[in-house]
């Protein structure tokens, strides 16, 4: 890269080696636990007992754990619920945020500042869990997917990011479209949205990760287990250690000895299954989040 990095003396080579190995150590620290879970989940179920937490190589090979997980009804329902909640939340979130951001980004809009303050207040002051619970109860949203979907359907932070982006749209472009006879909705649809594709993709990813990872609200608002997203199913099984939640996986009658070993492998598989969608879109996340954070984070 730059000239100041040229290696000259043995001491500097040693320094560089230490820096590289420190960073590689961090990489191992981050990735090894996940690779270990992967190895355990693909190991021969009979050989999981006594497998070291340090290994990243499966002991034998079997897809039994994954077969059990994927065929388990609680897991299937959880997966479908998660996908449904996340997709609806993301689409709704992007559309409503974009609409509001576009309007808020118009310079002459009367009341613009007041609405800005109105939104900022909600970032600084959150009255807490209980009032939120009562609102959801009052609206009849308990035990409904909507209690999750409507949570931060317009996220104040993302809204501000998008407003900043829309403010950069050249005035001339909008005036030209107005001269062509376009109404504000047409300008939004045909001018603003296409210009904001990358910003919208970023926001969409934000919403996706946010909703996919949400579990607390699902935990307090959804009593009906058939509506649980994957995170809550995982939590019940791994964090709460509730084996019963997963016993359906193995026939409960021969749920002894060898099957007991499966619990550790099942937990490993369950964790990986829950992060699979994040891993699938991780290259996109890196691309958009990194760029966004690099350029926008410190503008203040």
């Amino acid at each position: 890269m730059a000239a100041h990095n040229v290696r000259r003396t043995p001491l500097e080579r040693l320094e560089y080696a230490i820096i590289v190995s420190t960073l590689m150590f961090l990489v191992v620290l981050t990735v090894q636990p996940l690779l270990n879970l992967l190895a355990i989940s693909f190991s021969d179920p009979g050989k999981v007992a006594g497998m070291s937490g340090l290994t990243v190589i499966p002991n034998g090979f079997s897809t039994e754990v994954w077969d059990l997980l994927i065929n388990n009804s609680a897991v299937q329902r959880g997966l479908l619920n998660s996908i449904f909640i996340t997709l609806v939340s993301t689409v709704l979130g992007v559309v409503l945020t974009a609409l509001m951001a576009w309007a808020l980004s118009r310079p002459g809009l009367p009341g613009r500042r007041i609405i800005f303050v109105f939104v900022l207040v909600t970032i600084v002051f959150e009255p807490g869990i209980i009032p939120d619970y009562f609102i959801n109860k009052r609206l009849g949203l308990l035990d409904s997917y909507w209690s999750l979907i409507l949570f931060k359907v317009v996220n104040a932070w993302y809204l501000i990011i998008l407003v900043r982006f829309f403010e950069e749209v050249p005035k001339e472009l909008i005036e030209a479209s107005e001269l062509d006879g376009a109404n504000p909705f047409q300008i939004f649809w045909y001018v603003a949205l296409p210009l904001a594709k990358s910003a919208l993709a970023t926001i969409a990813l934000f919403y996706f990760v946010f909703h996919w990872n949400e579990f607390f609200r699902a935990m307090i608002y959804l009593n009906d287990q058939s509506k649980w997203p994957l995170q809550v199913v995982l939590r019940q099984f791994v964090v709460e250690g509730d084996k019963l939640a997963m016993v359906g996986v193995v026939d409960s009658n021969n749920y002894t000895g060898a099957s007991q070993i499966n619990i550790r492998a099942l937990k490993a598989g369950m964790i990986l299954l829950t992060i699979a969608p994040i891993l699938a879109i991780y290259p996109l996340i890196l691309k958009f989040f990194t760029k966004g954070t690099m350029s926008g984070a410190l503008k203040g």
Partner: protein
Amino acid sequence: MSRNGNVPKIRQGLSKGVRQWWPYYLMMAPGLIFFVIFHYFPIWEAKIAFEQLRIIPPNIWVGIKHFQTLFSSPIFWQVLANTLILSTMKIVFFFPVPIIVALLLNEIRGGAFRKFIQSAIYLPHFLSWVVIAGVFIAVLSPSDGAVNDIIGFFGMQPVSFMTDTGSIRWVLVFSEIWRSAGWDSLLYLAAIIAIDQELYDAAEIDGANRWQKIRYVTIPGIVPTIATLFILNAGMFLNADLNQVINFSNDVVRSKIDIIDTYVYRIGLQTGEYSLATAAGLFKAVLGMLMIVAAHLLSKRLTGKGVW
């Protein structure tokens, strides 16, 4: 509005404004309605902190009675102390790590190699606390977790970290580091990249070695960023993470890591003491708001940059 001919003019202006802008208000309407219902109604709803709830309304106004109950409860003080201890530990032990990681990353030549390291260490930031708790339960397991395998290798007794009152706070700090130190280094890296390259060239000519360049060019260059983020962190002081704590809690260690948020959740949604829980939540919200606003003002004064 004076009594001469101004009034009609203003009215005219207003109606013209409404005619011109109504489509934009219409676009904003769903978002605005959302903010009113899900952010402003709860503020109004929080009045139950000052009321005695009754099955058949109306509730009775009792003033600050619930706050008095709260402040005379030893558990509340314990919870407040836990919150402060955890936040302090995170600031002291978490805060410097991303800075160090960024300094190390900046020394790496070769874009592809650096990208590889970054893509690995950023990953945990995008995992939920449920998943991270699951990973930590596996890694720290006394019988077959990686950490105890290493401890065992040195011939020491295994430690049950997740159920050890002495270690659980460190588990929280370390899991926070595992989750976000890599990602947070991105902010500092951005600041380092913005430093004028000529400063490095000049230092080079003066014969500065790697450490001298870090000490006299890089670190001074990112001090404003460090200051801003430190103040921001201090402002979020009370926000010891509910999602984290709730997943790392169990009956054995609860007394050590029970924070205001988990306390509110427990006495509110689990025990049904809605008014008391709301009072605790409001206490935290007001204190938190004051700290964020103070942090914002301090940041503006010291670095010229606000928090938002």
